[in-house]
């Protein structure tokens, strides 16, 4: 009989276990397990199913676009700054020749320079995570700047492909930060906002009062200052997305903005082509 590596068997079992597998277990299954068999693999397996998740599975930390999601990066998880769990990840021996992966989407194989390359399970997991992060980050940029594209990277290996996706994420986040600093999109200090009646600037006193109230609590949505910088100490009622920079014609909201950030926003919009 052909020997199948137990690590591979364990991995395959995890891959194909149904998310609701715990429903197949009887609630009193523990009473049928002898005390001496607590270290038996079947007991541990049942425990895992009953818990519905693995307690030692690393997760992407808060603040990350995929924060809170499970990641199954077996190869580099412990060195990945995004992973907050210090539990020992599942071991996948890189030197072991595993059976052919059954593709269920994702990265069962990738083509690099016309060659089909099989990523390791750890690489597959990292590719899936970083590709999703890159897609989300680019999508967020394109909401305000549809013509933006990350600079393409050249790569010759799976690790290079992963670094390429990570580069896309970094570039997209830098672009979002740059846009936010220029007043494009709700800034890092954005708190409450009120719906804009339209792109017009015929604001009513109620809107002015509400924006001044929000501004006094959370400050300028772009820089956070509590000082509007205007002679009558009124915050600027800033349309977001800006009327002159609303490529997708999304509905607008009003945020408090200081006079300095408002002029910076106007300068940026004018330098970058104005109304689109």
């Amino acid at each position, binding site marked *: 009989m052909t020997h199948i590596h137990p690590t591979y068997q364990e991995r395959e079992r995890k891959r194909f276990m149904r998310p609701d597998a715990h429903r197949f277990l009887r609630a009193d299954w523990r009473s049928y397990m002898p005390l001496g068999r607590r270290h038996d693999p079947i007991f541990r397996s049942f425990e895992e199913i009953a818990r519905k998740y693995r307690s030692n599975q690393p997760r992407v930390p808060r603040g990350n676009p995929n924060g809170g999601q499970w990641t199954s990066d077996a190869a580099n998880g412990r060195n990945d700054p995004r992973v907050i769990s210090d539990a020992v990840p599942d071991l996948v021996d890189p030197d072991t020749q595993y059976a052919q992966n059954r593709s269920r989407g994702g990265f069962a194989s990738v083509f690099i320079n016309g060659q089909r390359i099989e990523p390791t399970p750890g690489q597959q997991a990292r590719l899936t995570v970083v590709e999703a992060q890159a897609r989300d980050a680019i999508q967020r940029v394109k909401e305000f700047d549809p013509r933006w594209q990350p600079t393409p990277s050249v790569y010759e290996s799976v690790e290079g492909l992963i670094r390429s996706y990570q580069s896309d994420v970094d570039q997209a986040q830098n672009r979002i930060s740059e846009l936010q600093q220029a007043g494009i999109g709700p800034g890092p200090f954005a708190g409450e906002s009120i719906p804009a009646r339209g792109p017009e*600037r015929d604001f009513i006193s109620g809107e002015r009062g509400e924006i001044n109230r929000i501004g006094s609590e959370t400050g300028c949505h772009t820089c956070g200052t509590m000082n509007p910088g205007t002679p009558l100490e009124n915050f600027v009622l800033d349309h977001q997305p800006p009327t002159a920079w609303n490529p997708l014609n999304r509905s607008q909201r009003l945020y408090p903005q200081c006079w300095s950030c*408002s002029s910076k*926003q106007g*300068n940026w919009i004018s330098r970058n082509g104005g109304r689109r």
Partner: protein
Amino acid sequence: MLVLQFKAGKLDKPERWKALIMYTSKLIKPVNSLIFISDRAGGEIPAWQKDKQILWTNSCISVLCYPEQDGPTEVILGTGREIDPGFRARFDGMLEIPNCTVTVQNVTHESLLSMEVAEQIVRVRIWVNHPRWANKIVIGVG
């Protein structure tokens, strides 16, 4: 005819002023409280700097107006010799105008005021009535 009447002393003072001074003006509340003075085809917008009322490149000048939510700004565009208010200009420099039409635009490049000039490089002087929150901006060309 007006010049002859002026020389002959047949126009009283206010009428003389109105008849002889060639300028256009507008009361505006520009978006982002910002206007740009450039050729009608636009120019190289100067990079933003914090707390700078007037910024410029060889082909474009940006001027901060009175904050739009607090009130309007009167912008006056005319020949420098005629609309010089008599005190030192806040800005005095040369501006490239390839199409010989000086325009005042807002951030979306909509023309607010314009004036034809004879040369492609003209002297521009700007007078403001407040060092930070000017609600009267006088732009003298030539």
